[in-house]
């Protein structure tokens, strides 16, 4: 199992505060059956700045440490970048990191409350430079929950998305869980990842989420998500299904 979204780097953001916490997280991940983790510290979200060179260096150090502690998990460099207008310029400058550094997939975090007007244009520009934007946790964005068509048009226009394992498992509440399933059913999401910050409130929940996916949608769906995370590490192209609009639920529906 591979986790492509995790705040495991020590003292980088609001995730692990030090090496001890990183170690605890790695151990919990190993227990769930995760073999590789892409460390994706926040960048440009108003509070944290983590540029490419620092992340790569910190990842190497953490790998050495985990190895010395006998934890068999490989950490790869990544970045969770808040959407901002100069992202491509900074990518050219070498500050921005794609997933696992070798792939063409770029994490984009939207503000939690809304989708900026320029998003469509910026995601187009990103694609024109040969990268694929991956919108992280769309199921937790207030505007997308209100107007899922916004996400549909971004995915139709080539963006990929990643939902949080804990959202599937229900740790963000019933409403977000239901909406996450809506996104999966409308082929609007391509990855499941933990977005783990610690081992208590914001843990991995990957095993639980995959188990639930398998139960609800069958093994084909399970492999679709698991394979896509693997494919990123091979720097190949992910699987996609034709995106559809989220259907409005009937008032007296069964769900």
């Amino acid at each position: 199992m591979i986790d492509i979204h995790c705040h495991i780097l020590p003292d980088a953001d609001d995730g692990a505060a030090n090496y001890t916490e990183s170690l605890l997280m790695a151990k919990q991940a190993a227990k769930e059956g995760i073999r590789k983790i892409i460390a994706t510290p926040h960048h440009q979200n108003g509070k944290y700045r983590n540029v490419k060179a620092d992340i790569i260096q910190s990842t190497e150090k953490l790998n050495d440490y985990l190895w010395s502690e006998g934890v068999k998990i490989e950490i790869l460099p990544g970045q969770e970048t808040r959407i901002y207008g100069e992202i491509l310029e900074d990518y050219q400058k070498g500050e921005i990191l794609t997933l696992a550094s070798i792939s063409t997939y770029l994490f984009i975090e939207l503000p939690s409350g809304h989708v900026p007007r320029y998003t469509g244009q910026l995601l187009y520009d990103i694609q024109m430079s040969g990268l694929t934007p991956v919108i992280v946790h769309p199921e937790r964005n207030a505007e997308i929950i209100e107007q899922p068509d916004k996400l549909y048009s971004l995915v139709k226009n080539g963006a990929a998305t990643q939902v949080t394992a804990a959202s599937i498992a229900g740790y963000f509440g019933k409403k977000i869980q239901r909406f996450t399933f809506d996104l999966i059913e409308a082929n609007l999401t391509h990855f499941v990842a933990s977005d783990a910050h610690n081992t208590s409130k914001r843990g991995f929940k990957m095993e639980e989420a995959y188990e639930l996916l398998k139960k609800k949608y069958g093994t084909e769906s399970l492999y679709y998500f698991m394979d896509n995370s693997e494919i990123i590490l091979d720097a190949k192209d992910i699987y996609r299904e034709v995106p559809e609009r989220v259907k409005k639920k009937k008032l007296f529906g069964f769900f």
Partner: protein
Amino acid sequence: MQAGKRKLITKQNPKSPISEQYRTIRTNIQFSSIDEEIRTLMVTSSGPGEGKSTTTANLAIVFAQQGKRVLMVDADMRKPTVHYTFGMTNTLGLTNVLTRQATIEEAVKPSNVELLDIMTSGPIPPNPAELLSSKGMVQFLADAKDEYDLVMFDTPPVLAVTDAQILSNKCDGTILVISSGKTEIEKAVKTKELLDAAKSKVLGIVLNNKKMKKNDHYYYYGTK
């Protein structure tokens, strides 16, 4: 993953009566032009979901099966689907060629059908109509004709946006797909008017989704 996979009958089952129908359309297209051969062809419809993309793909395949070098281009820059049909990625395509960021050779991918190459739409631009009417498009058509015997375009619906009209003006021929029991007569007529106004050459209409009676004679040969 809930939606059914897009299947291409002419590739999977060339002996099917449906494939035979596509070959009939192919011949009709070839016979429709006496003076000069059709080298650029686009397929469109009045509204969405009437079968443009399926028709384009299957026609491209039967032309390739005939030994022609065919390039199928996804010019539906509103809701591109060709990359799903052929299981490709859409990171590089027509947009990149029209904005001169890539050459045709770079943007084209071979399909799993011999002689058939595919160009997906590429990233969806904010201004598809402007791109399609740009000088880059004229240049692209000229260059593509040097490389291929036939260039086929999948396009957005005529009544929704102006893209198809723009493109039909630049193509040697236009095929209109009409879905039996779905396309309204007024809309079909309006579509034809718009295409005529754009000085396009409508070669004919493909009637899609026609219900077949069980005892229709087509099944006489195809089955084992």
